[in-house]
């Protein structure tokens, strides 16, 4: 609990969101429909609405055509239209290319063959030196920021279904609060002034202002909750009425900070490797189970007290459940056992708390037989013996802690190398280079625990912090497969992604022309940089070449949270 207090509000506001927010602007903002309607008294003394606006919001101007948010982007702030008008492009949205998204094309076997024999004379050779944008869009530099704009707004408005939002309207709050991808592309249909509200502010406002809370929650319930609940196998047998009922009572909780990565990066340097960073207690061992916890996003770790520390048992992610055992046990045997294991948010976690009584009334009675027996067995050993007994993994504890500590649990395609077998032959690197025009896209080094090495290759995270704030949408999730890729053409080398990747898996390179000379940006004579990383050999047949290229069965791309796969791979010898 101590940690919670210290690290939940790390000296907030020492770096205001917008440097140039003044009393005058705040006053102006407060006149807007949204903020005007808020009940300032409901905010605590130490957290007045004005200060929130002053520090956690900023005013930005967009010119006509500027793209504000892209569908699929990750963002941690919402926008309020102060003046002017924006257009929300409803599905089917703009062409991907207009959003700066574009993945390598599927390549034929022959082109692959060719690439194997083609000796690249120089590394990082590019056709286009400067970033360029597909027809219909362009980019301009606006002070620090780079803006991508739609050239012919009218034709877009006529061609696509565009919903106009004029002043006082807000958008992007759900994506910001629930850390879900943006659901639609928004662009300025005319010069517009927006108030960007970062998630901290949103969270506080939601917490202290009932009207806002209801507004957001209803929105959220409508858009996300039901579908989310539907997707949980435990509730599969419930009918819509029940789900409605359940949704009504479900509470949203959010732990940790969205920019945990930054915080993590800041702290990991200072702390010794045994301290736990950015871990916020959600449930302490011994608390009363007042509800079943569903992970909507973020990560948690289940741990039990061991002497003076906590032993990680397993990690929880999207769609995982916590607390079912205790609830079931109490319901079944009429006992009141408290929580057997603690639950921590790793970095941040969004939790849905379904009250215990709902579970007892709606879920458990109607539970199919096979579920019952299964859960009963689990619950018994969970409660009577120890959670440690049934957590189904034989990944050794040390490695577990290592993976948790370094947040590798975030990875869906983490590159792990079994050093007992790795002969340092660099076949993986060669293969990678062959797949990427002679340029490796990872480095065969990284942190190791015992004989397992996690190499510096993009893990294609569940929570891709690198996507946040990409000005051109160059880095994005592919439509199919969900790999994180960078569109080399639209990458402007701003290093936002590289900087925010907590694993140092994105590397900036200076690009060259095919006669080897480094391309300089004529505006400032600096070498043009491009962000590069593993794209999972997207477009190449047969998946990541590195794994196929390893002659000694040493390298694997693996989802760390897939405990069974992990333990199987780890315990091969």
């Amino acid at each position, binding site marked *: 609990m101590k940690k919670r207090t210290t690290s939940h509000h790390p000296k907030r506001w020492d770096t205001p969101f917008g440097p140039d927010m003044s009393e005058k602007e705040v006053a102006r903002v407060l006149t807007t429909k949204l903020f005007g309607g808020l009940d300032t008294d409901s905010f605590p003394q130490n957290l007045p609405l004005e200060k929130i606006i002053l520090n956690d919001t900023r005013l930005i101007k967009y010119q006509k055509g500027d793209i504000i948010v892209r569908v699929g982007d990750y963002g941690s702030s919402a926008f309020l239209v102060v003046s002017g008008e924006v257009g929300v492009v409803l599905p089917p949205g703009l062409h991907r290319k207009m959003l700066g998204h574009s993945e390598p094309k599927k390549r034929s076997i022959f082109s692959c063959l060719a690439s194997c024999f083609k000796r690249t004379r120089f*590394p990082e050779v590019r056709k286009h030196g400067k970033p360029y944008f597909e027809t219909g869009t362009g980019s301009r530099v606006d002070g620090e920021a780079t803006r991508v704009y739609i050239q012919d707004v009218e034709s877009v408005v006529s061609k696509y279904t565009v919903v106009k939002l004029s002043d006082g309207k807000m958008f992007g709050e759900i994506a910001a609060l629930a850390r879900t991808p943006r659901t639609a592309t928004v662009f300025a249909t005319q010069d517009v002034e927006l108030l960007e509200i970062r998630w901290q502010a949103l969270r506080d406002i939601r917490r202290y202002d009932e009207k806002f809370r209801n507004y957001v929650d209803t929105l959220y319930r409508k858009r996300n909750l039901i579908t989310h609940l539907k997707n949980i196998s435990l509730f599969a047998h419930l009918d819509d009425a029940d789900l409605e009922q359940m949704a009504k009572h479900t509470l949203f909780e959010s732990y940790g900070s969205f920019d945990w990565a930054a915080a993590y990066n800041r702290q990991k340097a200072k702390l010794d490797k045994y301290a736990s960073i950015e871990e916020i207690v959600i449930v302490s061992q011994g608390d009363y189970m007042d509800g079943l916890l569903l992970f909507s996003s973020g990560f948690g770790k289940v741990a039990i007290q061991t002497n003076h520390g906590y032993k990680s048992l397993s990690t929880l992610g999207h769609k995982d459940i916590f607390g079912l055992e205790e609830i079931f046990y109490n319901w079944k045997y009429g006992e009141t056992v408290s929580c057997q294991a603690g639950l921590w948010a790793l970095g941040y976690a969004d939790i849905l708390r379904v009250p215990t009584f709902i579970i007892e009334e709606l879920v458990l009675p109607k539970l199919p037989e096979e579920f019952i027996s299964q859960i009963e067995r689990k619950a018994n050993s969970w409660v009577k013996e120890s959670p440690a007994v049934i957590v189904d993994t034989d990944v050794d504890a040390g490695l577990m802690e290592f993976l948790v500590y370094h947040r590798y649990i975030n990875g869906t395609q983490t590159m792990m190398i079994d050093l007992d077998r790795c002969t340092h032959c660099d076949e993986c*690197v060669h293969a990678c280079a062959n797949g990427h025009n002679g340029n490796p896209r990872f*480095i065969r080094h990284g942190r190791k625990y015992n004989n397992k090495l996690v190499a*510096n290759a993009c893990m294609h995270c569940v929570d891709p912090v690198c996507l946040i704030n990409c000005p051109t949408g160059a880095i994005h999730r592919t439509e199919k497969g969900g790999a994180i890729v960078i569109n080399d053409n639209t990458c402007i080398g701003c290093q936002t992604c590289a900087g925010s990747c907590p694993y140092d*898996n994105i590397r900036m390179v200076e690009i060259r022309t095919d006669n080897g000379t*480094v391309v300089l940006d004529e505006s400032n*004579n600096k*070498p043009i940089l491009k962000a590069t990383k593993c794209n999972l050999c997207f477009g190449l047949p047969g998946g990541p070449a590195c794994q196929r290229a390893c002659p000694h069965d040493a390298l694997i791309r693996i989802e760390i949270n897939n405990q069974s796969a992990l333990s199987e791979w780890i315990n091969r010898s």
Partner: protein
Amino acid sequence: MSEQLQDISYMKSLYERPNQKWVCGKKSTGKPCLEGPDDRGRCQATFECSPRKEDDRWFCTRSQFLGGPCSQGPSPDGTCCRPVQKCQPIRSWRSWRGIVTCSIAVLTLAIVALILTLDGGTDLISPGALSTGHAGLEEECGTCHVSFNTGFSGWVISAFSGSIRAENSHRCQSCHNLGGHAMEPHSLSAERIEALRTEQKAGLESGPQMHNSIGGGLTVSLSRLLVSESPDLSCDICHKEHKGAGRNTTGISQERCLSCHQDQFYSLSNGHPDFVNYPSSRRTRIIFDHVSHLEKHFKEDKYSDKAPMGCGACHFPEVDGTKMVVYGYEYSCAACHQSQVSGYSLSGSKGVEVLGVPGLDIDVLKEKGIDIGEWPEEPYWTEDELSPFMKLLLSARPEFSKIEEVIQDLDLLLDLSDATDEQLEQVKNLAWIVKELFYELEIKGATALMENIRDSLKNELRNSTLIGLAAALPPDLIQSARQHWFPGLLREIPLYRNGESIQITVLTGQVDEQGTAGGETSDDDFSEEASEDAISSEDRASSGGWYREEYQLRYRPVLHADQFMKTWLDVSSQSSTAHGFRLFEFLERKNAPGACIKCHSIDKTTEKRLIVNWKIPVTDPNEHTFAKFSHTSHYSQLDEKACFTCHKIDKEADYAAVFDSRDFHDFASNFQPISRKICVKCHLPDQAGDSCVNCHNYHIGKFPPAEIHPKTFAHNING
């Protein structure tokens, strides 16, 4: 844990590029330049940055990877103040490996080139030293390898021509002549093989069955599937050369035999058919009854001193030790059998009547006035008036056939009382041709005889044979005989030839005016006393040879293997004429002088011709038979029974009887067939060995030993 050496942060640690050929030489210092070398390994580095000009001021644009803008900033003329010190780029590991690989490959090519071009190269090409037998051919690979002298290009070509091994095999045969069917199974013609197969089949149907087992097991039966109908049987399949001096170049495995042979069995001890009458495939050529000799004769007292002590007394191994042979008549038989040959023990005439005067009923002839000139009176006629020899000789004359035909009805020429005129006419002719014969003999001697024999036998005979047949008939003997029998012959014949008829004159005992003696006067040459102790003329010729008895000239065999007898038996046995054959029958009688046929068996050959077996056949050292056996090498195995260990006497067998027949196939050996069990005692895998080639040859036929290479022969002639 000590602090980490590597900083993996994205700013500090840039991509490793092991796939690049060249690496910046300053990498080892930890401060490589950003440009890196070009693909030829030349350092590209110039300055750390290319400064930017903004309204007359230059700004440093150094890359963040070099630590961002530098403190000094560019020099006033806008050049970077931090020139990068040039380096000597180094090759990457991959690049090194490539270079080593290439250079070693080149080296290998060079070595190959040398081997193929240099003179000494052939020594390297040769896969090893030759066997002792071929030693010395190393210098001349071309002697055995057809393609050798065509050079490498030629080798490549011939490598693809499938026929090389066959061609080489022919080279082998230029020395090792295996006959026309060398390359066929067992070096035998297909027909011969087929014949043998059927024979074998027949033998197996009647004789002992062999287990038609899966021979060498599954392996063999699978091999058989692979063997083609006409397997390519070049020499090198079994004969391996270049295995080094003193190595055996021959070798054929059990499996290989079994992979062709229809009847499958494991080994001699297991499944091999029992021997049929081995070793005798026919009756003996010399009629020698081991049983009667061992059981009877050798036990008789009179022979006790002559009887042999053991087999070794008569039998001895041939030089190569394989076959046992006999010392021969002189050493083994003569002691007891000489008297029979010389005819001492013979009753009656001890010689063969060759020439003689037939007796005629001269009273009738006189009375009827048949002009036959002089004719001796009442000699001691033998029953048979003309000896087979006389008939044969007279048959040379054209008249004779007619004569024979007419007078054959007369039972006896000594009684012509009721002979028809025609018959008498023919008797007259007979008388004259007899006289003509003697006339010829007298004036021409042996030549006449030889010609006569040739004409009568009606087939070409070599001179040597004729001489043998004439057997040195002494002219004087002819003359004296004529003086006694036809004193006036020399006068009469010319007249007779002139067609004059010469009155019959009966020669009585008294000497006529010419002083020639008549018929029986022979003994009267002696004085009273002389004739007292004189012995019969038969006995006088006891050492053999020609002699006159009454009105006959006879020949008595001189010693064993008498030329006259032998030659006449051979010639007459082959003769196509009736008289010739009758003569053979006359000579082959058991009691005929010389008694040749008593021991020398007569065979009818496949061409239905008769041959007298004079000799035990000597084995030709070049003859390679299916089975091979060395007597001498088995001596050590004999127990106290000595030869009888294997050769068991068969007392029941009626050895002698079969020789009346002339088919040498039906016979009863004195010995029981050798039993396989005896061999199997020692011939087991772990003892004396029991593989096929222990006892069998592969190449069958008569092969001369390796010839001198014709080439060398030519060389020497041409100097």
